[in-house]
């Protein structure tokens, strides 16, 4: 049997499909090697299919089936392109803070991805998250402001299901969000710096609103945050900055602790710390998958092709059966 004949045989297809099934089974037992396990039989199947398309005229004449298989081939190739060019990242940004690509944590980065995050500009504005009486998270409305164009400022709302797309990147809010304390540090020379310390996700970690922080003076302190109000059981509520209007920040050092309200300050080693105010920080998921839409289209066309193939096959079968029945009836009548 020649190599071409082997590559175009249906028996070979079946063998590789079985190998793919076994590889899929192994892929979740061994996630580290999953890509190679799956990629190898998929590549062989792709070659098998290409050879069949070029060498089998009967296959080519069955348009629905051909469409289905070409669609599958396109899905495989587009999935490969997706792996090479995709980007996935996470972002935590505080109300009032400008977007900076440096604060994006990369989760996945395809080898051919050209990072365009530096072209994105926005200012994080107000965040509101709805909760139902039984504690279920509802809509998230995270507002961002875009740079003014023609003198008009544009605002955009991002939610869990309401993405903001820019430069091919897709921003979606996540369940991850919480309070951030805005602090100012004045050193002994009188220089002042400000920044935010994010507390753990809220209300998920309502019981433990604490974070370790090293002051610009080099002293490690524990910041313990109390928003001043807790979600009432059995009542709908909204997570927004205003919920923490009565907030207290406890600064715990080796020497003792200091409870601060917004505007209060305390003396620490080599400087003084002021608790300025409270804001919310929002967690986003960032995705860049330029081939995803085309993968979807290829998959839809493949399934339409498959449906058309079976519809055509069965309607031909029906017509044939009906012709056979009619001629049988004709024979009975003439007899």
């Amino acid at each position: 049997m020649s190599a071409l004949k082997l590559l175009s045989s249906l028996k070979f297809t079946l063998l590789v499909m079985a190998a793919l099934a076994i590889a899929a089974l192994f892929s979740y037992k061994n996630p580290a090697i999953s890509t190679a396990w799956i990629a190898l039989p998929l590549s062989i199947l792709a070659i098998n299919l290409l050879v069949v398309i070029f060498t089998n005229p009967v296959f080519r004449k069955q348009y629905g089936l051909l469409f289905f298989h070409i669609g599958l081939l396109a899905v495989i190739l587009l999935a490969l392109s997706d792996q090479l060019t995709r980007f996935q990242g996470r972002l935590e940004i505080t109300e009032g803070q400008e977007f900076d690509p440096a604060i994006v944590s990369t989760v996945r980065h395809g080898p051919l991805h050209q990072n365009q995050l530096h072209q994105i500009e926005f200012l994080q504005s107000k965040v509101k998250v709805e909760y139902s009486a039984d504690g279920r998270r509802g809509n998230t409305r995270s507002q961002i402001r875009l740079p003014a164009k023609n003198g008009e400022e544009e605002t955009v709302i991002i939610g869990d299901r309401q993405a903001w797309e820019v430069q091919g990147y897709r921003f979606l809010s996540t369940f991850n969000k919480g309070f951030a304390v805005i602090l100012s540090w004045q050193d002994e020379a009188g220089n002042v710096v400000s920044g935010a310390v994010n507390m753990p996700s809220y209300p998920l970690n309502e019981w433990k609103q604490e974070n370790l922080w090293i002051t610009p003076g080099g002293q490690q302190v524990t910041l313990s945050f109390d928003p001043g109000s807790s979600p009432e059981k059995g009542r709908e509520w909204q997570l927004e900055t205003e919920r923490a209007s009565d907030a207290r920040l406890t600064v715990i050092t080796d020497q003792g602790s200091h409870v601060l309200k917004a505007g209060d300050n305390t003396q620490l080693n080599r400087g003084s710390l002021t608790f300025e105010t409270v804001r919310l920080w929002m967690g986003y998921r960032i995705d860049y998958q330029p081939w995803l839409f085309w993968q979807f289209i290829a998959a839809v066309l493949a399934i339409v092709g498959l449906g058309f193939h079976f519809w055509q096959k069965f309607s031909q079968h029906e017509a044939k059966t009906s012709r056979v029945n009619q001629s049988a009836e004709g024979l009975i009548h003439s007899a």
Partner: protein
Amino acid sequence: MPETLLVWSGTAAYGIAAILTFIRSGGTVRYQAWAHSLLWLGVILLALAITLRWVENGQGPFMTLYEVLISSGFSLGLVYALAISLFAEVRRGMMIALPFLFMLTIWASGLSTDVVPLPPTFDNFWLWIHLFSGKLFLGSLLAAVSLAGALLLQNNRAGQSDAEVQKLDGLVWRLASVAFVFDSFMLLAGAVWAHIAWGRYWAWDPLETWAFITWLSLGMLLHARLTFRMPLWLGWAASVLVFVIAFLTFFGVPFLSHTAHKGVM
């Protein structure tokens, strides 16, 4: 309480219908029409139970094993009843399909009816498409496999011509092919849904892996039928095996794994 009563009544309807399919006279099921009517009654009672639960809890039956079982008892019963209305020959598989439906609902009747909230990101249009095509897939496959199983079990083929067996075999493959189309669409819709719900369309989690293996098994079966001159019984037996894989994927894997897919069908 009315919901539980309705589920039990639907289960009883399926159970009696299943028993009726075993009462035979002269080689044929004696109370076939009654069994078909009871199947419809079971479908209606389960539909009412699901509606009541839905109205009371404000979410569809997607999260717990109990919900998945009653919704599958309803949807598979409906698809099967419709398949019988379209192709009368599908009735031959009632002695397999009806005990199967009864098993699903009796299994549900013994489970906790507690509500698990549906996360807001899960609740989108593609969830509906995914579930709808999934139920159509399993329903069509149930119709195909119950007929294949009945043909396998039929020891006495006296009075049944080769042409008739060929016709029934053709129907098994026709229904299996329809199931393959819906299975493909279920995977696609599931990928879109997962992308919206979790930000990734495919991650080889246990349910995705098994759903892919099910699709591949069915695809292999359809290919094998074209490739080899399989004896009829072998094709029927293989289709039963594919159904077993599909069953484990739908009702076993999501409740044994610890991934985000857990409990969500």
